[in-house]
């Protein structure tokens, strides 16, 4: 049945886009920093997971270990380097590019050109004659749960309140007694941890090498561009729309046109809605409240 195939393809693409973009979106939306080292953070997570499973740690634990490890690494990078660049978007591009160079070449020096990966766990299920990987279906639900957790984190905790205040107007938030620098550091750490989580989740499905992250870079940037500055609404909406476009094109004409379709959609969206989907939603919301 083509419909199952389409649904599976959509679930697969949606989770890939969401998981690869969410860390980047949080850092860009909250801090205005374009993290070109995002792909390398994901790669680092994949390495931690693969190495941990190879030494006998069960996979779920290894994936959480990757998130924690890359989160701590992100905090160190932030304290050492990024915290001098708050508000300097373009300089952050150059610096994070430098970081990504160091990371990918450093990993190449330490671990060599590739790592022996593990096979995709959980086997497959068959529906209407075609087989589908259970693990990839699970990833879809993990992506949904993760969006839920992020929603809870930003809307129902003190950290969320402070960080949204910092995002809206950092100087006023500062005068109200919020330590904005600390909020930025925590945000960067959160973004890095999510990148590590993504790397850990995809480590069993792909070949783990120093260029692991480059597969994620383009889709993540496109998702963030189309989504706009709001990491939650923007990312989930653009993940959904791009997932649909990508899946239909994938099935009709193949993977290459799926990727090209992403870029075309991105260019059209940014021309019509320069602030992405989150700009559109916020405008509607404001109008609804009569502001």
């Amino acid at each position, binding site marked *: 049945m083509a419909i199952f195939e389409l649904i599976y393809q959509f679930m697969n693409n949606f989770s890939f886009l969401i998981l690869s973009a969410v860390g980047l979106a949080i850092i860009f939306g909250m801090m205005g920093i374009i993290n070109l080292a995002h792909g390398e953070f994901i790669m680092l997570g994949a390495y931690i997971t693969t190495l941990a499973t190879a030494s006998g740690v069960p996979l779920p634990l290894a994936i959480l270990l990757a998130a924690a490890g890359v989160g701590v690494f992100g905090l160190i990078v932030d304290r050492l380097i990024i915290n001098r*660049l708050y508000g300097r978007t373009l300089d952050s591009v150059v610096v994070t590019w*430098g970081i990504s160079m160091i990371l990918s070449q450093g990993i190449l020096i330490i671990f060599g050109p590739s790592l022996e990966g593990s096979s995709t766990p959980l086997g497959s299920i068959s529906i209407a004659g075609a087989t589908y990987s259970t693990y990839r279906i699970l990833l879809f639900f993990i992506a949904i749960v993760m969006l839920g957790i992020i929603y809870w984190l930003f809307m129902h905790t003190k950290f969320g309140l402070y960080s949204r205040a910092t995002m809206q107007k950092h100087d006023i938030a500062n005068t109200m007694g919020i330590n904005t620098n600390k909020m930025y550091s925590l945000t960067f750490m959160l973004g890095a941890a999510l990148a590590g989580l993504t790397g850990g989740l995809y480590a069993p499905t792909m070949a783990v090498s120093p260029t692991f992250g480059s597969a994620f870079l383009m889709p993540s940037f496109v998702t963030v561009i189309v989504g706009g500055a709001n990491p939650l609404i923007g990312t989930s909406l653009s993940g959904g729309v791009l997932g649909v476009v990508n899946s239909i094109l994938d099935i009709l004409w193949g993977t290459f046109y799926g990727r090209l379709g992403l870029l075309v959609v991105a260019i059209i969206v940014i021309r019509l809605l*320069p602030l992405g989907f989150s700009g559109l939603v916020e405008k509607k919301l404001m109008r609804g409240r009569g502001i």
Partner: protein
Amino acid sequence: MRNLKMKLNTENVIGIGLFLFLFIYPLFVTPYQILNLSYFISMVFLTLSLSLIWGYGGIFSFGQAAFFGVGGYFYAIFTMNSGISTITPIGLLLGVLVGGLVAGIIGYFMFYGGINDVFVGLITLCITVSLETFMAQTAGSQWKIGTVGLGGYNGINGIPTISLGSFALADVNFYYFILIVLLVVYIGLRLFVVSRFGYTAIAIRENRERTKLLGYNVPRFQTLIFALGGALASLSGILYATWGGYMTPSAAGLTAATLPVVLAAAGGRKNLTAAMIFTFIYYWFSQTLSASGNEYALVILGAALILVILFVPEGIIVSLFKLGDNLFFNRKKATQVKAEGEFT
């Protein structure tokens, strides 16, 4: 035209010194080193194009690599289809025009559509990536323009060098040709940025709204300067294609797109001479390191970039220029400042 009188300062002295050095350089070294330097020079145009539109026009672009690719591919397809060597200079000129035209069209849609700042960077990033993705899948025999196959990831090979009449520009001749082109472009750009147009571009960079209120058609100036940058990047791509005889999608891809940004930022984007000198230093350094088989080359370069942005944010070469100015050409002011206790 104002400010045409050349000032005696570190930048100009170093600039003149650099060109003199480059002109006598082939007398002392092996043909291999000349070939290398030709490659460095062809990449300098790319950095200059970004320095022009970003440093002077305030337009942040990841698209220079795409225009680089447009130029290189156009030249390859045009000259290889005709098969006549005398047509190559026409291919060069047309390629530059095509690069400028493509940039102009993209710029028209962006700037007249009110897109600015970081979003220009993101759109041009998309364009670069889509061009690279598209070219990389053109391996099949159905991807042909005229008689030239696009070659997919391996790109096009056997691109002819530029010939003037029956005189093919190779090795040292090519080096001098490309050096003279660089000199002309460099002087042209230095004059351009102190012209009325150049000042308008700087005004737009500093404050778009105010420039608009003063009665300037901001999108038109932005489109024009973006087209000029595209033409320069295209020139760079053509020279690169003729230098090695090949053109690949990765030369116009994502990594290639970030490199000029990094070079212009680290050298000093608001200064053409600084961007040019830093490009030379970078390519020389990376080639020396990788030629000696040093696997830490990229690590060192990455660390250097981070340190430069953290400690000398306006660019390392620009800071050196300022230091030189204070030391040699502005002695009075430097001592005065020191005496007033404002020396920082």
